[in-house]
């Protein structure tokens, strides 16, 4: 299966812990080189942010990255056109806010994702009750719409999110915004555990996963991690693709090492 979910399931089946690093599209002229560096460092999927003027669920780092990209003239169309030119074998997952999707119309937008080789979509301000239309349009374009679960989500909703999500289930590790943190939130581990109990889909933890140790810890209950702010902080501070790729590589190494430890599996 060449869907996002198929790829992630088969990697998991091989005993791999899943790693999905993020970059804000259009943050620099050579932003797509970060994707290549992530792939080389052993990413299982790469996540591309389409910047929005009002990123409600993002902390300071991604806000800054978004503002920068927009100031450079980034737009969804331009980023997707650049993405279409990139040679990658790992799945591409786009993350953006509802307004960018509905501005173009859900069908048009999903068609453009497909044309850019995108196989997954995350929309953090589109919860279960509002996602129906996009679920249909995404499926029609062969794009997996990833739904998010939060520590405040009821067991009933967790089950429904597990059923309706495609690609993976995004476990938002804490009640807060994206951003680097010193520690992985306990609430995230509990959430991943609860999700694993109700769904067979891959469960990836995100928000605040900042260090290799966090990734290892997250993967004791979940199947993988999304890493965004910690990498974007480095990009904003001037680190190039090779340097940020090395950060991803360090996470990969730790995750692989932990996967080999017998205590890692149930």
């Amino acid at each position, binding site marked *: 299966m060449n869907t996002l979910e198929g790829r992630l399931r088969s990697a998991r089946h091989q005993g791999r812990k899943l790693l999905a690093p993020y970059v804000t599209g259009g943050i620099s002229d050579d932003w797509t080189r970060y994707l290549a560096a992530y792939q080389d460092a052993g990413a299982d999927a790469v996540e591309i942010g389409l910047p*929005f*003027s*009002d*990123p*409600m*669920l*993002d*902390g300071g780092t991604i*806000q800054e990255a978004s*503002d920068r990209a*927009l100031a450079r003239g980034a*737009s*969804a*169309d331009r980023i997707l056109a650049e993405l279409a030119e990139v040679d990658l074998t790992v799945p591409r997952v786009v993350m953006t*806010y*509802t*307004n*960018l*999707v*509905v*501005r*173009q119309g859900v069908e048009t937008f999903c068609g453009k994702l497909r044309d850019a080789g995108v196989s997954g979509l995350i929309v*953090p*301000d*589109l*919860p*279960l*009750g*509002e996602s129906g239309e996009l679920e249909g349009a995404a499926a029609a374009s062969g794009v997996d719409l990833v*739904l*998010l*679960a*939060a*520590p*405040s*989500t*009821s067991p009933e*909703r967790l089950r429904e*999110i597990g059923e309706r999500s495609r690609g993976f289930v995004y476990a*938002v590790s*804490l*009640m*807060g*915004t994206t951003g680097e943190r010193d520690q992985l939130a306990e609430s995230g581990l509990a959430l991943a555990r609860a999700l694993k109990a109700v769904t067979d889909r891959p469960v990836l933890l995100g928000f605040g996963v900042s260090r290799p140790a966090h990734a290892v810890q997250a993967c004791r209950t979940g199947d993988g991690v999304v890493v965004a702010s910690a990498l974007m902080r480095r990009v904003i501070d001037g680190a190039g693709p090779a340097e940020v790729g090395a950060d991803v590589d360090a996470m990969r190494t730790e995750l692989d090492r932990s996967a080999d430890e017998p205590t890692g599996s149930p």
Partner: protein
Amino acid sequence: MDTSLVGDSHGGIVAAAGMREPSDTGRFGDYGGQFVPESLVPACVALDREFRQAWADPRFRQQLERLLAVYAGRPTALTPAWRLSAELGITLLLKREDLAHTGSHKINNVLGQALLARRMGKTRLIAETGAGQHGVATATAAALLGMSATVFMGERDIERQALNVFRMGMLGAEVVPVGSGSRTLKDACNEAMRHWVGAVDEAHYCIGSVMGPHPYPWMVREFQRVIGDEARAQCAAELTAGTPDFVVACVGGGSNAAGTFAGFVDTPARLIGVEAEGGAAMTFGANGVLHGYRSKFLQDEHGQVREAHSISAGLDYPGVGPEHAHLGDLGRARYVTVSDEEVLDAVNRLCRAEGIFCALESAHALAWVLRAAGSAELPTGSTVMLTLSGRGDKDMPALMEAS
């Protein structure tokens, strides 16, 4: 007069358009909804449930009515604008929300939400503010009910509404400057939402207008309908026809207008919402989703939200409440714009003619009346009920600079 609009067609539209409860999914027509991160869904669902219960509970209603009367000073007067009426050739009545405690209509909504928050066991109020009037009202209600308040305000607004910033501090609220984006109301909303995600257990987000995720647009309109209900009864006593020909209010997010319109939507009155030229989502906006709801927003072709620009901080907002978008689609309300210059002129004229110094926001409504009176839009001899949403004290530094 064009009776076709007054009689028949409005009768039909009213039945279809009436400002009723939104649908189960929080929709007014195509607009509204609950576009929030999953983390906030349970809080929105709980708020919907709690508001329904409270609003159906006579004790809650009595509690709120009593506070509105003995604390906020309701009912507010309906003042005939004698000299302006004579000058303009119309009958102009002013609903005096400037006389309410804290100086604007914002207190109506805030007292309702603060009582509700307390009923829900919350100990802290979060608010966004533009002009500072909603922040002041929130700080006031928090002081009254022994809660704490955190108010998010754009850095640009902090500069131009310094008096209200000081006032909030006096009342014991914490004012958090917001330096992102346009550094105005839109960014204060973003930051308040972000903060709420992390504080949802102990804090209630007291949204200041008919915007945000369901149930806010509906709940805030219900808390503000006291303006329209009072004005309806006052008009019945004041006007031979019983209801005015025109009902006019300024529109930022649209709460004073929604509360006003709610009292007249089932009459033949024509409803006019007046936006700032530089923040006119109804006039220049396109459909989109921001701050938890689907409505009309100023934005570019890629879906990036545009910054609003208005002399009045309270109308410097790129969106508009979903129910207004719906009323506009139905043709039940009409939305017009006025320029900053017209607004300054309106403030001056109201001062000189009636001895009332209104807020820049409120002056938008008057500016349209001044422009339209005597034209086909607002024919000579018409009766007009205009909501004067607040008083101008907060704007004095800006006006001193402008003069």
